[in-house]
């Protein structure tokens, strides 16, 4: 039953993505509207899935790689809805839907059974730590996708002072600012939690180190933007490369580098 909800969400997200691109390629507003509605359904399904899973497990459903990946995709879908309602522009969907679909497909590949929580994860700080991570990663991922959109639009208009490009650049910047604030919350709440659970707030384990690396990379992004007035193409490329770093922190560290965090 639970799995049906998950796959229904995944499939509807796929359909929404395909319909969105059909709408884009053939300039059909009807298709774009349909994609938007299907994506809302997909979000509702995923939300229902996460809630039911949480109730069944009796805890926050964000405690292993699968649940976190699903949460990550959920965060992207939520930001997609918020951005779209706020900016009232439909290119947001073309950027967010494939991103959410990629992450949710990754989740689909992971084992889905509900495991008992290890005692170290039973903490109030855990909710804050992992909840802010969902939003931080989601914002960074969308910023990276906006970067790709920037580059493809740039190919067409070939002029950095084009209104559309300026807006894309600005939105990527705002997303990164939000993601940066959230990542700071992730790291600092993680420190407080680690002090409670393991007695020291920082141990340079690979997950911590990579979160710090990611944090510094985005700090450099924010400063270069201000210091050098870097905008446009450079920043789009930067935002795309930085997402690789986010994904390594999220996936690569668990697979490749051993450490205290390796259960996550």
């Amino acid at each position: 039953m639970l799995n049906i909800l998950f796959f229904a969400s995944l499939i509807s997200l796929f359909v929404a993505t395909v319909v969105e691109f059909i709408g884009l390629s053939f300039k059909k507003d009807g298709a774009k509207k349909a994609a938007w509605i299907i994506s809302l359904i997909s979000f509702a399904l995923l939300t229902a899935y996460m809630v039911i899973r949480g109730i069944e497990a009796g805890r926050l459903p964000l405690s292993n790689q699968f649940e976190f990946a699903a949460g990550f995709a959920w965060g992207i879908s939520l930001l997609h809805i918020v951005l779209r309602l706020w900016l009232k522009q439909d290119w947001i969907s073309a950027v967010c839907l494939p991103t959410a679909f990629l992450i949710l497909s990754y989740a689909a590949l992971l084992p889905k059974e509900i495991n008992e929580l290890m005692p170290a994860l039973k903490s109030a700080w855990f909710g804050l730590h992992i909840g802010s991570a969902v939003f931080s990663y989601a914002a960074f991922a969308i910023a990276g996708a906006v970067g790709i959109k920037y580059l493809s639009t740039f190919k067409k208009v070939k002029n950095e002072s084009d209104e559309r490009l300026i807006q894309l650049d600005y939105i990527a910047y705002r997303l990164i600012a939000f993601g940066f604030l959230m990542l700071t919350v992730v790291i600092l709440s993680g420190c407080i939690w680690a002090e409670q659970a393991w007695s020291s707030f920082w141990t340079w384990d690979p997950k911590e180190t990579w979160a710090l690396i990611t944090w510094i990379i985005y700090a450099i992004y924010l400063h270069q933007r201000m210091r050098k007035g870097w905008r446009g193409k450079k920043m789009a490329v930067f935002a795309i490369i930085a997402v690789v770093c986010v994904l390594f922190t999220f996936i690569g560290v668990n697979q490749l580098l051993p450490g205290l965090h390796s259960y996550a």
Partner: protein
Amino acid sequence: MKILKFLRSMKFGMILLVLIVICSLFGSLILQNQEPAYYEAKYPGFGGIITVLSLDDVFSSWYFIVLLILLGINLILCSVLRLKNNISAYSTCFEKTFSKECEPASGGVRDKIEALLKSKRFKVTEKDGEKVYYKNRLGYYGSFITHLGLLLVLAFAAGAMYLSVYNDQMILPGDSYTLEDGTTVAVDSFTIGEGAMPDYRSVLSITDKNGKESGSREISVNYPLSFGGHKFFQQSYGVTGYLTVTNEGESSSIALEYGMFITLDGTNGIRYEALYPDYETDEGGKITPVNAQDFVNPVYLISITEGGETTIGVVLPGTTLSVGDVMYTFEAPLYYPGIRIKTVPAIIMGLLYFSFGLLIVGLYLCFFHVPIFVKIGKKGYALNGPKHNFSLENDINSIRRV
């Protein structure tokens, strides 16, 4: 002068950040704190270089510490010197906005803009019949607070790491341990929960150096206990053999240590060799101890010395042996907690967490509390502020277009 200028420049700051990232890459990709032989085996030909460059312990190497100190200096120089700019930006913001050239706009449009600003809860100030609507003035201090927060995080984190003293003790249930300052920790009980991911819980009673008692308090992972200036963590656990010795109707129990010889007369007795977690039985019923993760079928390996002869053997928990007139009963193995006692001045942790808060508040101010000013002049309007506010600009543009 030139050097000072460089030291406090943002460029230098960014260079430092890049260098810190590079060190962190090495520190996370190369497994830290291993023996030199490990590196020689894993990276043939580079083992020596890794050790010489401290790549086996990057985060406590001299150059990494120097980088962090330079970052601290850079932050002091750039944020302290920036404070003046922030204060002046804060205090001249109205003046600057009033003196801005206006975009021409009709009275109707100006009224609509004012209505919009009021609905967005802008505050207003007036001068010579002109108005400035404003919001989020405190945002000017965002970057100062952010950098100050970061600087204090660095300083207090270093302080907390330097001043923390860790003391790990294995304490048997019923026993106690006394710290140097006279604080005594007694372990009243230790339990391991059920299931695949069991909880480890110790009940402690602590008496601080002034004789103040904590009463019975439980600790487990995520729930340490702070008392008497120390913090007590449920850190690990161990298991040991446990033996009851009965002689002439009197018994006493002892936790066994490897190699311990238990005797009353000095010659006859039992030597405790080991406790194995599991065993196998062959067809003849002979028991062979084996190693395993969990103590599923614990078995004692002992040697018995009686009448000048020594024999080695295995016994299961619950067995009673008599050697001479003395009875030895092997009990179920005893589980005991590893307690970590951390001592660090509470004030420094308080300050560290306070600076965490500053950093978050500073970032919030930087990005989500950006100062914005709108002048409503006699013939038009003007926007001012340290950053673009696209959503307000869009709203105003759509008012103008109507």
